[in-house]
């Protein structure tokens, strides 16, 4: 949509193809819309977009069994415009709003059209088809924004079949609660919002996390985790079972108490990582967003802003091709250069080891949180034991449970690959 908006604004004839009933009808994300790119395109975003709440409060929580250790922040800097460009929202609402902007700029749309394949002429993509007899649509260039489950990117040959290690699954519920209850439980006023992320045993033994985000009068509660971990490390657990386990955690259950679930949703998330990104262009075709694997899989969980940036870069490249009247892969390769020189590829490169490091250092997601919890419990436990004795016992417990050389190497690895 960012691509369509940009092209339409430059007077290029553009048609958006949507397989759902309206823009965003098939979309689902965790819930935080990172808006810096959007605000540059549509300066009115802050005042008029249908976001639910801005993120004024963030919590990073480590669950160990039924326990919780958390780091909570509510900086004044995030509590004033532009609110750290972080807004909790729903794709169905924001995408429709954004399409209306693109539409006003001149972009058209066809909804309920499912592209089954590209059309080719001498190896160049020249259009799309839904598989019916008379519904082919021809174009100078096609920009594929099909999402994480991109069958078309595979069909085009630009990527190999997606493997389980290259995807996570996310399931989420929308849980209705009165806005007063939300504001009281999360300590919020007005349009302030909270984004709570739960690591550790929120998704037991799996690489992933749970989350609770506050909408205006509902919560987005979900879990996301590696598909390959689900296959290899659980004994046949369904994603819904993992979500229910998270909802039952003593730190989460009180937040959703009395709420009514009104929707259950599922979506894949790319975790291709920098080293496994597909080729992003060929004659007559560009791939953007999740379909291109452009998602920051680290703690930042940024997706929509990377997708929008890629859409703008695709549009700039198409404009260049339009001027030259040359849509060959040589001209379209400018898209790759634009991505490489931007924060998109720089960020993906810098977090390239995040997922693989955690896959190979499982102790970081289960053993260390449990031990850290135990040590803190020992440290703060009230007793008549002298504190000096307590400290000694803690040190000896650390020495007994942790190989210090290995722990130092692990911590160095955490610093290098995760932070």
């Amino acid at each position: 949509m960012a691509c369509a908006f940009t092209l339409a604004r430059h007077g290029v004839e553009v048609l958006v193809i949507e397989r759902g009933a309206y823009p965003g009808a098939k979309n689902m994300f965790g819930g935080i819309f990172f808006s810096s790119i959007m605000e540059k395109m549509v300066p009115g975003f802050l005042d008029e977009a249908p976001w639910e709440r801005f993120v004024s409060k963030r919590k990073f929580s480590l669950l160990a069994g039924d326990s919780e250790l958390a780091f909570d922040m509510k900086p004044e800097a995030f509590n004033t415009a532009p609110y750290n460009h972080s807004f909790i929202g729903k794709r169905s609402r924001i995408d429709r709003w954004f399409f209306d902007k693109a539409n006003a700029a001149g972009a058209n749309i066809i909804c309920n059209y499912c592209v089954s394949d590209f059309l080719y002429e001498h190896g160049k993509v020249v259009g799309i088809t839904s598989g019916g007899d008379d519904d082919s649509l021809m174009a100078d260039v096609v920009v594929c924004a099909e999402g994480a489950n991109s069958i078309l990117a595979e069909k085009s040959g630009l990527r190999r079949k997606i493997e389980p290690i290259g995807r996570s699954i996310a399931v989420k519920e929308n849980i209705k609660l009165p806005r007063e209850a939300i504001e009281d439980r999360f300590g919020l006023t007005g349009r302030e919002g909270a984004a709570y992320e739960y690591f550790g045993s929120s998704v037991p033994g799996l690489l992933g996390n749970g989350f609770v985000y506050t909408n205006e009068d509902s919560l987005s509660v979900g879990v996301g985790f590696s598909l390959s971990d689900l296959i290899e490390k659980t004994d046949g657990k369904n994603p819904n079972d993992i979500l229910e386990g998270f909802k039952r955690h003593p730190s989460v259950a009180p937040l959703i108490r009395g709420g009514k679930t009104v929707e259950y949703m599922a979506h894949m998330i790319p975790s291709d990582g920098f080293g496994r990104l597909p080729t992003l262009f060929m004659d007559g075709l560009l791939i953007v967003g999740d379909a291109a694997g452009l998602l920051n899989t680290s703690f930042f969980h940024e997706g929509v802003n990377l997708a929008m940036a890629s859409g703008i870069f695709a549009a700039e490249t198409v404009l260049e091709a339009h001027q030259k009247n040359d849509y060959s892969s040589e001209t379209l390769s400018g898209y790759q250069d634009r991505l490489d020189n931007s924060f998109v590829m720089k960020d993906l490169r810098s977090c390239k080891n995040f997922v693989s490091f955690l896959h190979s250092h499982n102790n970081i997601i289960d053993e260390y949180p449990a031990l850290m919890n135990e040590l803190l419990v020992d440290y703060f436990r009230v007793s008549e034991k002298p504190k000096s004795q307590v400290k000694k016992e803690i040190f000896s417990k650390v020495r007994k449970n942790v190989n210090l050389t290995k722990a130092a190497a692990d911590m160095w690895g955490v610093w290098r690959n995760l932070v």
Partner: protein
Amino acid sequence: MGSLEKSGMKPEVTEKKMDAAAMSLEDKLFLVKTKKDTFSHITVDKDICSDCRDRVCLFVCPSGTYEEVDGEIEAAYENCLECGSCRVACTGGAITWKNPRGGFGVTYVNG
């Protein structure tokens, strides 16, 4: 944009058991706004399945679309949430998953 919503897309929301703390997967699936096609967008190659020992489709699917009936895998395509996890997880190639035809399948209201 409301006019683009197909008149046939009525949510099948039931009021029963919406308590967030105690909902079964079956009840949750009732909440999903879906326009059911008469034609399945999922096909399963039973010859490949018969040799498959892992049968990961039985648990990776968030909506429990796949079931074993008399030793064979059946796909209740109308429950599909269109995430595509089964397509990626079935490395044996038994599952052919296409997007539902235009106008059919799920519509997320709170996605």
